[in-house]
């Protein structure tokens, strides 16, 4: 197990390298610069800017500098947000996104697993059909449609919840964004749990458990759940990739100052250091999280030996 972890941690480095290089390459290859986005500048001004940001050095020097800085976790300063270092922005924005993402996923797990298990245990009953229908709706409504609709209903008509903006954590301002973000995951997890549980409940060892005289609830909780939830665990890895893009949209819709929103703005502004910084950060988080999920899987299923 230890060797597996070490191997995976080591792989993170080249992967990071690839991602960052790709991003940097794309930014450089694209026409235009962060300062041309708005207006045409006088040549002398432009020359000064280039000097200031080291853009007049050959590309490989700049590339090397980027990598070197990254190794020291120094991503430089934002080109757009005057005077703020990328690290500062990261530190400010990350907790927002983390709070959002975490609450959304926990909500999804809670509601999804419960619904899915109930649906599986009461197969073909109204609970089953109703929850699977809802799940289907959850998968079909895009989050950028659901979000505004929820805002329309709860924020602008009923006035129960704030329609946008971030009010710190914990506060009401996280409710609608979290629900919006979690909707599709509730749906997926409910479906996965249902089919996972259905398959497990059909298996021979559940029949053995019943033959031992265990009550149905013990059969489900002690024997069935562990195997039945495995698909949900393995889903959680790739789900994070989903989650990131979902977070971007939700933060946009609700105007939350999280990583996603900063990221999009940085892309539009061609704010290179910020882009690289966020990309690197996200890459590390995703890779680390995937590793955690794999480890968790190894703990839950004793047959997997790394």
């Amino acid at each position, binding site marked *: 197990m230890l060797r597996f972890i070490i191997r995976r941690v080591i792989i993170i480095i080249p*992967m990071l390298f*690839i991602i960052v290089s*790709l991003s940097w390459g794309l930014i450089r290859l694209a026409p235009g610069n962060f300062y041309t986005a708005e207006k045409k500048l006088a040549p002398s001004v432009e020359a000064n800017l280039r000097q200031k940001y080291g853009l007049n050095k050959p590309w490989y020097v700049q590339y090397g500098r980027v990598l070197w800085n990254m190794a020291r976790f120094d991503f430089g300063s934002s080109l757009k947000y005057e005077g703020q270092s990328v690290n500062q922005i990261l530190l400010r924005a990350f907790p927002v996104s983390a709070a959002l993402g975490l609450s959304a996923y926990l909500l999804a797990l809670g509601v999804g697993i419960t619904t899915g298990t109930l649906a599986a245990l009461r197969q073909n009953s109204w609970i089953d059909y109703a929850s699977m229908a809802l799940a289907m709706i959850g998968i*079909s409504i*895009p989050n950028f449609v659901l979000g505004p609709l929820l805002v329309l209903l709860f924020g602008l008509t009923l006035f129960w919840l704030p329609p946008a903006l971030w009010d710190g954590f914990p506060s009401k301002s996280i409710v609608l964004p979290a629900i919006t973000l979690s909707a599709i995951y509730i749906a997926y997890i409910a479906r996965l749990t249902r089919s996972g549980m259905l398959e497990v409940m*059909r298996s021979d060892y559940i029949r053995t458990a019943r033959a031992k005289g265990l009550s149905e609830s013990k059969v489900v909780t002690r024997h069935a759940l562990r195997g039945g939830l495995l698909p949900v665990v393995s889903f959680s890895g790739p789900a*994070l990739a989903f989650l990131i893009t979902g977070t971007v949209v939700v933060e946009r819709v609700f105007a939350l100052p999280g990583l996603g929103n900063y990221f999009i703005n940085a892309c539009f502004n061609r704010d290179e250091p910020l882009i690289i910084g966020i990309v690197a950060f996200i890459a590390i988080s995703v890779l680390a999280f995937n590793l955690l999920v794999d480890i968790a899987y190894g703990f839950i299923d004793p047959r997997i030996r790394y």
Partner: protein
Amino acid sequence: MTRVTEPFAVASGSVLHPVNDKTSKLAGHGKEPTEPALTPLGSPPEPPVSPHGDEAIHTGPEFAVGEGDVRSAEAGEYVAGSSLWKDAWRRLLRNKLAVFGMIVVILLVVASLAGPTIIKRVTGYSYDLIPKEETLNKSFPPFRAADGSFSWTHPMGTDNAGRDILARVLSGGQISLMVALIATLVSLVIGISYGATAGYLGGRLDDLMMRIVDVLYSLPYVIIVIVLLALLPAKTPTGQLAELFIALGAVSWLTMARIVRGQVMSLKNQEFVLAARATGVSTTKIIFRHLVPNTLGPVIVYATLTVPTVMLSEAFLSFLGLGVRPPRVSWGSLAADGAQNLAIYPWQLIFPGLTMALMLFSLNFLGDGLRDALDPQMRRE
């Protein structure tokens, strides 16, 4: 975002083995030479074929019974040739939800293709027509004319510039559909070629190719896609779209490659492949003429899963302003426009949003139905 597939069927009678690699590890564990090849969670042994023609006495999965000889007529496995597809088609038609999905999808497709032309004939509005009169340059609610009276001209109302929303929604549908289909095609082409080659050639090359897939799988390279699309200048619309197809297709080919590889690996040792090789058929021909057609089952299923996923991806990219650029519209960009005026003119968001939801809803049901219909052939992989 497009990398995660919906691995399981909803209906009770069938469970598609998840594509995610982790659970496929389970199938390989604990196999003993003395034991029949069963899934790790157990299934009753299969009894012999019955004398009644096509019908095989088949172990229905509902029974935890040791016998299980009590269900017949899951004929798929024992009949060769064309009746496999006919069977699947029949099964699909029995599934009312899937049929409903199919009908709605067809209706929406027809509406998107023919709609804009019809509307242009009837009301004179197209998706980008801004009325000359200034009084019409504002957002009307559905079925209302400028003076507030009832009018058939704008069943979905207009946007802030006075453009007809219905025309825009249908045109947006054209774009969304086109992007989804072409991007899926791209991912199919890449995925099938890659996967079939890896699966057939096997050995170190296969190892390497799959390693690459593994690595790519864990990259959050939707982020890269965003960077890519954000940096593209808003050039000619066609140029923009081409990148969009490729970008979206490039994200979803991975799982397709894995599926195809798995299928090819289980097929390549069968006799028809040996026969082809014995008669000197070239490797490329073997892969593409012989093996690939036999992988169509799972490929079709995954393709029907990819289409809505890609559609959703395109939509949110357009919503963020990265996908389809003006003057073209897609459902995503319409939603973005509509979201801005949500408080005052909610119909600007509701109609495109609901149309899109309806399309995805139907595609998902159709996909589920197809999966169930084709499932008996795709036993537990």
